[in-house]
């Protein structure tokens, strides 16, 4: 498990005192068919963009809650990491973005029959958003609609 000891005193205090939005009631969609028939969508909050896409904005108060759409067949080498947080070690993602945005692994998963197909476009956020009300109201429904329109059945969500 990630551990609080990784963080500075300030970050520890923030995590302990921040008013996390508890999900209540917890929605639940049971799997409706075998994984081998499901279309998988990926959501990551590692702050990755493709070369040529607009980077996330470090200066937005409450955090940049926008997202970028990353095509499933993108070259892993074209991902650029620009997450604003200094509270996690960026070196792993710099060495291999697959550990937070597993483009290569998901293509292999389909080849192995582990899932049926992949979303055409995955969703990449930056995370470290404290203005979650604004995000839930304005951004998350649009992101969800993208997956619904793409016929996504299951989603893997990967933070950093």
């Amino acid at each position: 498990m990630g551990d609080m000891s990784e963080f500075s005193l300030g970050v520890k205090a923030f995590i302990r005192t921040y008013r996390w939005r508890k999900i209540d009631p917890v929605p639940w969609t049971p799997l409706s068919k075998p994984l081998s028939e499901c279309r998988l969508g990926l959501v990551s909050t590692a702050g990755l963009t493709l070369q040529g896409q607009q980077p996330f904005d470090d200066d937005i108060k409450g955090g940049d809650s926008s997202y970028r759409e990353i095509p499933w067949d993108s070259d892993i080498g074209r991902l650029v990491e620009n997450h604003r947080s200094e509270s996690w070690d960026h070196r792993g993602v710099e060495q291999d973005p697959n550990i937070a945005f597993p483009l290569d692994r998901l293509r292999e998963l389909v080849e192995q029959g582990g899932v049926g197909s992949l979303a055409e476009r995955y969703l990449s956020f930056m995370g470290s958003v404290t203005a979650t009300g604004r995000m839930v109201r304005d951004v998350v429904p649009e992101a969800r609609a993208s997956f619904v329109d793409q016929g996504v059945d299951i989603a893997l969500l990967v933070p950093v």
Partner: protein
Amino acid sequence: MGLIAAELERHGISTVVIQLLRLVAEKVGPPRGLMVPFRHGYPLDTPNDPEKQMAVIQAALQLLEDPSQEPPALVDYSPDAKG
């Protein structure tokens, strides 16, 4: 992350979230979370180790298939467990 998962679940998409910090997972309570023993910045284990990365992904997806789970389903990942 949990809030995105909740929105997807409300619209018919089954989700699983990789969880790096138990305290946050328990406070937010996503529908399904795989709690992994890795440092922040390393959610799918080791860079340039496809086998380890795939093992985490497959464990997460197996949570979706487990009919015994109820929300919020927070399950510990055991790297050495056989899938």
